[in-house]
């Protein structure tokens, strides 16, 4: 494993046979995990990475090396960026090598349908000449857990997207049969797709349909209720680009953490990670795009330039 991790850092190609090994080792570990993993403090929570491998290196420089620091990644490891394969393999390898220092949960891009149209599938084809690596990774996706609880009672509920109108308690999440492709609707879909929005509490509208085509938009009231019912104090989620890297809402009851700087080599945004210490204090660390991303942004890489309207 150490050599794979090293090779990924060097930007080397990982042969299909090795990918198969990593995937099967990872599956063995992930299958044992509950839908909501319990994670001790201190831990650093990271949002979407989206195949921006070189920014993931910067993330580790910012938050502290792994395994020295404990990490939770909130999903969306793949798609959009040009190094989804390497990013996902690095995170999986770290998980296999340091199971209690690295935690991974599922994002909406860890699905066959989404990753087939947003870049990961094409990248696998390009780098391996066939779809078997993509298929193996999708099998792993089905094993990823759906959420995490940091610090036990009074702690932080972590999820990729947000809440679901069909879910009141964490126990209901624990009962979901997660080992499947992400459905188009229902609680599992909502956890991975929903977004919070300010202002809904005042309109007395708690839930509305999302223009993403899946999940819901939820206001402050459902967040408050969730905290009361589940004895939690913060929802940490990712899924939405935040230009400053992180954004607290509802008087600090929810935070969005975004960890892909200059997202898609297009957005010009900062990225952040959130460290929760033993006293449940929050510390945000902001970082910028690595030079490599900047290089891609300026098109010196081999990858296609981002699309605009001309």
């Amino acid at each position: 494993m150490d050599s794979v991790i090293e090779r990924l850092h060097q930007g080397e190609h990982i042969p299909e046979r090795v990918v198969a090994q990593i995937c099967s080792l990872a599956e063995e570990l992930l299958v044992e995990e509950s839908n909501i993993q319990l994670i001790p403090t201190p831990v650093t929570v990271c949002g979407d990475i989206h195949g921006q491998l070189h920014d993931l290196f910067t993330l580790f420089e910012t938050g502290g090396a792994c395994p020295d620091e404990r990490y939770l990644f909130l999903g969306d490891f793949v798609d959009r960026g040009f190094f989804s394969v390497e990013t996902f393999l690095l995170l999986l390898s770290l998980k296999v090598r340091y199971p209690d220092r690295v935690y991974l949960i599922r994002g909406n891009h860890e699905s066959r349908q989404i990753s087939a149209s947003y870049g990961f599938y094409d990248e696998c084809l390009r780098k391996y000449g066939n779809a078997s690596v993509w298929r193996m990774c999708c099998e792993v996706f089905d094993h990823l857990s759906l959420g995490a609880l940091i610090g036990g009672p009074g702690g932080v509920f972590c999820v990729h997207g947000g809440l679901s109108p069909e879910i009141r308690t964490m126990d209901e999440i624990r009962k979901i049969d997660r080992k499947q492709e992400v459905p188009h609707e229902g609680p599992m879909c909502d956890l991975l797709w929903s977004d919070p929005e300010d202002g809904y509490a005042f309109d007395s509208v708690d839930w509305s349909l999302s223009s993403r085509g899946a999940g819901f938009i939820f206001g402050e009231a459902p967040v408050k209720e969730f905290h009361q019912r589940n004895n939690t104090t913060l929802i940490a989620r990712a899924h939405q680009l935040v230009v400053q890297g992180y954004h607290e809402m509802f008087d600090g009851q929810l935070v969005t953490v975004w960890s892909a700087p200059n997202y898609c080599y297009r957005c010009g945004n900062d990225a952040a990670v959130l460290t929760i210490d033993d006293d449940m204090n929050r510390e945000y660390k902001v970082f910028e795009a690595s030079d490599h991303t900047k290089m891609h942004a300026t098109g010196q890489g081999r990858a296609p330039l981002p699309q605009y309207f001309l």
Partner: protein
Amino acid sequence: MSKHLIRQTDDDAAGSRLSCLKKKYYEDKFLNLFIQRARPRLPLINIGTYCRIKAVNECIQDFISKNREACAIVSLGAGSDTTPFHLLPTHVNLDYYEIDFEESVAAKQKVIDSNEELTRIVSESNGRYHLYGMDLRKINDERYNYHYDLNKPTLLISECCLCYLKPQEADEILQFFINKAPKTSVVVYEPLYLDDSFGRVMSENFAMRGISMPTVEAYPDLVSQVKRFEHYGFNKVIAKSLFTYYNELDKDDKERISRLEFLDELEEMILLLSHYGIIYAY
């Protein structure tokens, strides 16, 4: 910016339309004649392209409905736009002028000539359709002394065309038509805010493709765009970002397009759509 690169921007625009059409955002029975293949665009590009097409169309419809007796449309940098072929048969008092580089115009003419329906539409328009090939920067050059009958309400359209020119060039072109047409309206669609963090990355990415937009630097935001057209003496100047336009889509339509594809990132779409503006002056 080289002529070749400027002309190529139409392939990109047409490709986006085709992607948008294939995903069923809108319909256009003529588009396929001009472009047969395009790599699929991201959902946010499809949504933006849809809004752009719809926004420009709404301005056109508004203009025509106010001037049913007689009117003209002049499309600057028309590229492979199919709008005239939809409008000419049903609006018998409309004259349509399309201008683009000679090579682009020749390619368009070839498509028209090789298709029965387009040929018929053009011939049945009885000379109301005009396709002029020239570099717009030579608008005052006598060699391009094309005929324009604009003594009637006239709508000038620049859908991502003038933005590639220098502000003085764009001004000269606008002024030329405003002088020719006593009653002019204008609809302009072009990028905005190239000076914020998203916009800076955007211009860097454009620069890598050899694309520059000097006019956008001169009119960096909606406020300066409004001033730009007030300066020509228009009574009313409506300037909206494409994102505002998206937001104002009627509920059913918004819901319909939200069901066509999964949109993975709303904020990215908001950022991108906020960096384009539709300006309608009359």
